[in-house]
């Protein structure tokens, strides 16, 4: 790997790691995150079996 490759890899991986760390930090820090933060697969779809 050349210098440009190292720079690209470190910047790319570093940027993504910083972003995901920031997001998880905010989720963990938010007092009521579990009450009003949701992921698509967790969302209750209120289906009625009629």
């Amino acid at each position, binding site marked *: 790997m050349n210098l440009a490759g190292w720079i690209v890899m470190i910047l790319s991986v570093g940027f993504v790691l910083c972003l995901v760390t920031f997001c998880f930090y905010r989720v963990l820090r938010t007092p009521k995150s579990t009450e009003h933060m949701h992921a698509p697969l967790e969302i*209750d779809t209120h289906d009625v079996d009629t």
Partner: protein
Amino acid sequence: MARNPNQPALARNGSVENWGSKIGVILAVAGSAVGLGNFLRFPGNAALYGGGVFMIPYFISMIILGIPICWVEWTMGRYGGAYGYNSAPGIFSVLWRKSYGKYFGVLALLIPVVIYMYYVYVEAWCLSYAIDYATGKMAAIAENTTPGEEIQQYKDHFVNFVGKDENGFPKGKVLIILAFVFLPNFVFIFRGLTKGIEVFCKFAMPLLIVCALIILVRVLTLGTPDPTQPENNINNALGFMWNPKPIDKDGTVWGALSNPQIWLVAAGQIFFSLSVGFGIVLNYASYLRKNDDVVLSALTASATNQFCEVCLGGLITIPVAFLFLGASQLNIDTLGTSMALGFHALPAVFSRMPAGQFFGMLWFFTLFIAAITSSLSMLQPAIAFLEEGFGLGRRASVTCLGFIVATGNLIVIYFSKDLLAHETMDFWVGTVCIFILATIQVITVGWVFGIKNARKEVQRGAELHIPNIFWFIIKYVSPLYLLTIFSCWCYNNIPVFYENITQVLPEDDRDTVLFVLAFLVGVLIFFAMLVYLAGRRWNERETWNRAKEEVGV
């Protein structure tokens, strides 16, 4: 039936649902985000289109298109849900306030249903390969093979496995595995996603991340696996993926950026990876309460997806392929499609790797988990539409949809020659329609609903403040970027498609493509008719509700 928008979201048993631990939220986010594209499509695209250079249009597309359109989708969904609509046609009707508005939602029904038809088949391939690795059958394929010939052996195996050499139902066990894959899919979908999938994600997602991390550590510590080929070492392997390089042999490194194809591929990768323009998040966000956060939720889902893509997929797939196959075998044939990389090249890698049988089983099992957590969410948009458009219960909706999906799936399986049915559906629905829907969504929010309204709507309940620059991006830059990319894409690809149909393809293959196209148009028209009928039902209900209010009932 649409629920009262003034009522908070209720669980099926009538009590307000608690979400559990914060870690549970994160795990569920991860489960939503990760799919096959993270581990196969992204690495192949990056390696083919300039390596490190690809990351420039990739991250630009993520910031200008991916994340803003994620926010747009979550916002649209939650807004429409507040008016009692969970389906895309209903949501679009609320935003456009015109009788034709609901028809923009037809694409959001078509896209996930059609993608499901071939995605679940690929899911079955992953599970089948994992089982074959566990039983030793995959390793046996490359026994007594001349070094350098393994890719061809596995390619031949794949061709027989899926029946790629001629149309017809494949003879092996793939159909049995597909039935096994359909079973958990429809059990979870039948039961409703909060009873089962949440538990599934809380175990499956950590398992996926752990499996991927084990493989990552294994790959990064391989050093020089074959001392007789010292150039195939981990440093050069990472370089093959991350060093900026020209796309064409005669081109320059930075000249690659002037090639529109790299921008098209990068934008397409972001779309597919973040599930932008699929219609799925639009539906899910509609179940949120008015003050539920959309900003941090969408950003966390996107960030988790990018972690799996860039930090795991980007550091595993291509480097391990280089370590065992070398640069000479990594070309358009092995990298050009996810199929080639995933099912031809990587088995060849595992055949040479120490403990390759174990790591092969782990790898394909990881892909299977990634695929199933994606496929489970794909049918919900259409189910929601059938429920609220026609008053059907979940079981009736799933049954109706099951017939449509099974028909499409049979078409994909039967017309297996060169995977033409699969490629045709992926081209027109998995690429063209997604571009169109994403463009419609961003124009709807930026120009129809209005940026002022969008800003107010997004920030309600938000855990993060969106920087002002993103509103300018959503209104002007994203639509312009999308329209430019889409125009270039059409200019590059539609004539090639037309030429293939009229001149290149043999008659049988041409008939297959036209048949599949006719099927897709038929499904589109069918959904449009259903939207028309549902719209009439919604209008009648609104008229009835207004009359009741006037009378004071």
